């Protein structure tokens, strides 16, 4: 390739990322104005400036408006943003680790582990001593525990490989779901069942600054870390043998990645429940647009994931007046048909080549 041509494609990609950043900023502020109470952009700007930078005076804005913005809308949107980043990045890494385009962050058994934790907590009151948020805490603990067990299982008898990891994940998934189903089936607590179902479908309604203070640094650190791993991720797609001939030993690196993803997913489950589809689809959607090179995939997928989840949350809040749909339903309902359309229209091979 001529160097001008490469430079040209770099400039094109940089402008694309810039556009995505602008769209994300727009989405972020626009979504704050969406809701049952009309609040002007001007007021929102003032409130955020005051709360974040301690600038300006907002005494002329009613206390209730301040609370709606700062305590209700903003935390949810921030949670949606970070969930989008976390899920999409984890999806990309997971697919690279197992070299399988069907992988998503939940194959480590995290979703069924979390469901089991939540079911145990809601139906049987397990972990009530963790305080008011004990459902989330037991979901987090079970999710993390199960993913560690999957990793350990994949490593029994020495070398772990992608297939063993996938199969251990599947086995643990099935086992955890079976236990959850058993508990639900033998219980007569209808209200509890509904709570479990709602919880499993994922929602941002429980967002608050206390939990976000923990989640934000975790996701940001993981994002920054993985952005430094772009070359290794590219090599990872070629397999362990080729990686060795290119000077990289992947075994230890893979374990580090998996641990990081487990932790990240545990925090996400704790804050937002289980939101499927994003971690599977966003990596594919991104590769469809920018190709397989992780230099391009990682920044793009993080931005696209954030934008998608904020919009999904907005829709879930306004689609039924006076009520809200679980965000997972919106994503699957809108995402699946869009994805099928892209799949039919383009020549992208989805890794199957």
């Amino acid at each position, binding site marked *: *390739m001529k*160097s001008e041509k*490469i430079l040209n494609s770099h400039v094109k990609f940089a402008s694309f990322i810039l556009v995505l950043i602008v769209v994300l900023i727009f989405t972020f502020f626009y979504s704050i104005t969406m809701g049952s109470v009309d609040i002007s952009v001007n007021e929102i700007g003032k409130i955020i400036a005051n709360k974040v930078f301690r600038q300006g005076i907002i005494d002329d804005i009613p206390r209730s408006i301040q609370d709606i913005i700062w305590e209700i809308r903003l935390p949810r949107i921030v949670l949606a943003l970070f969930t989008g980043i976390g899920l999409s990045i984890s999806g990309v890494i997971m*697919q*690279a680790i197992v*070299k*399988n*385009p069907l992988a998503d962050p939940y194959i480590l058994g995290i979703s069924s582990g979390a469901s089991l934790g939540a079911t145990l907590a809601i139906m049987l009151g397990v972990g009530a001593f963790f305080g008011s948020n004990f459902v989330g805490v037991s979901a987090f603990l079970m999710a993390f525990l199960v993913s560690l067990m999957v990793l350990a299982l994949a490593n029994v008898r020495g070398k772990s490989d992608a297939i063993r990891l996938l199969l251990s994940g599947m086995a643990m998934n099935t086992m955890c779901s079976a236990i959850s189903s058993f508990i639900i089936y033998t219980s007569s607590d209808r209200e509890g069942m509904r709570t479990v179902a709602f919880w499993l479908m994922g929602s941002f309604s429980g967002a608050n600054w206390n939990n976000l203070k923990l989640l934000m640094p975790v996701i940001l650190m993981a994002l920054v870390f993985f952005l*430094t791993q772009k*070359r290794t991720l*590219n*090599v990872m*797609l*070629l*397999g*362990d*043998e*080729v990686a*060795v*001939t*290119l*000077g*990289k*030993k992947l075994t230890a690196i893979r374990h580090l990645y998996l641990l990081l993803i487990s932790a990240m997913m545990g925090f996400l489950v704790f804050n937002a429940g289980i939101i499927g589809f994003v971690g599977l689809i966003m990596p594919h959607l991104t*590769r469809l647009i920018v*190709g*397989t*090179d992780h230099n391009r995939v990682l920044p793009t997928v993080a931005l696209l994931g954030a934008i998608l989840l904020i919009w999904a949350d907005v829709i879930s809040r306004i689609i039924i007046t006076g009520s809200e749909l679980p965000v997972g339903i919106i994503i699957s309902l809108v995402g699946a048909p869009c994805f099928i359309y892209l799949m039919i229209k383009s020549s992208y*091979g989805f*890794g*199957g*080549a």
Partner: protein
Amino acid sequence: MDLEGPKLNIKFKDIKVKFDEVPILKGIDLEVKNKAFIGIIGPNGSGKSTLLKCLYRVIKANGGHISLDDHLLEKISLKESSQKMAVVAQHNEHQFDFSVFDMVLLGRTPHKKFLEKDNVDDYQIVSDALEKVGMSAYQNRSYSTLSGGEKQRIILARALAQKSECLILDEPTNHLDIKYQLQIMGIAQKLNITTISAFHDLNIAALFCDKLVAMKDGQIYAQGSPEAVLTKENISALYEVSTTVSKDPKSGKIHIRYTPEGF
């Protein structure tokens, strides 16, 4: 450690490999001189590929040592050894697709420090490598859409982009038609660097190699010039096939005709 310099001598000393207590290599001693083109021949299961895999560090030997110049291979980092040796192996199918250019660019990995970006020099090296294998026109194609022969040429280009002093060919042409087999070996020969290749086709091995190493049951059965190794008796002992061996009057190369019973 200073490994610079144009020379690369490789020494295998008493290399032993076992899989589940079954000995695959039973103590291989071999010396590969700088810039030699060495062919390894032998029937399936004789240990050709295992020997090469020990060299390119996918398999760890249970005994013995390999040294590059005077440095023990196990004391050298993977990064350093991948700057010294580039590999083209047999299977190069992947689940995820790269553009041809990006695929070759991955060959620059051993030379890159943590967080170092690809620069104009890397792009130039990739362009040159693609040129050498005659695939310049394909650089924007996606790798998965190429034919088997084209893929192997791209992988060869990736190995060239590693700018190594040694090229290891682990039966890369096995499933390719004769045109590509000759083409890939021809490109490798022109590089004029140390080359070690496993061969199935004895005539092709005779055509390109300075020296042949014949393996049988995890041991070296014979080694030397193609004339010395590819005798009627040796081939019969290695492959249990009867042949007529002659010398091509024009090229002076060994020529083997298979003459199984009934022909």
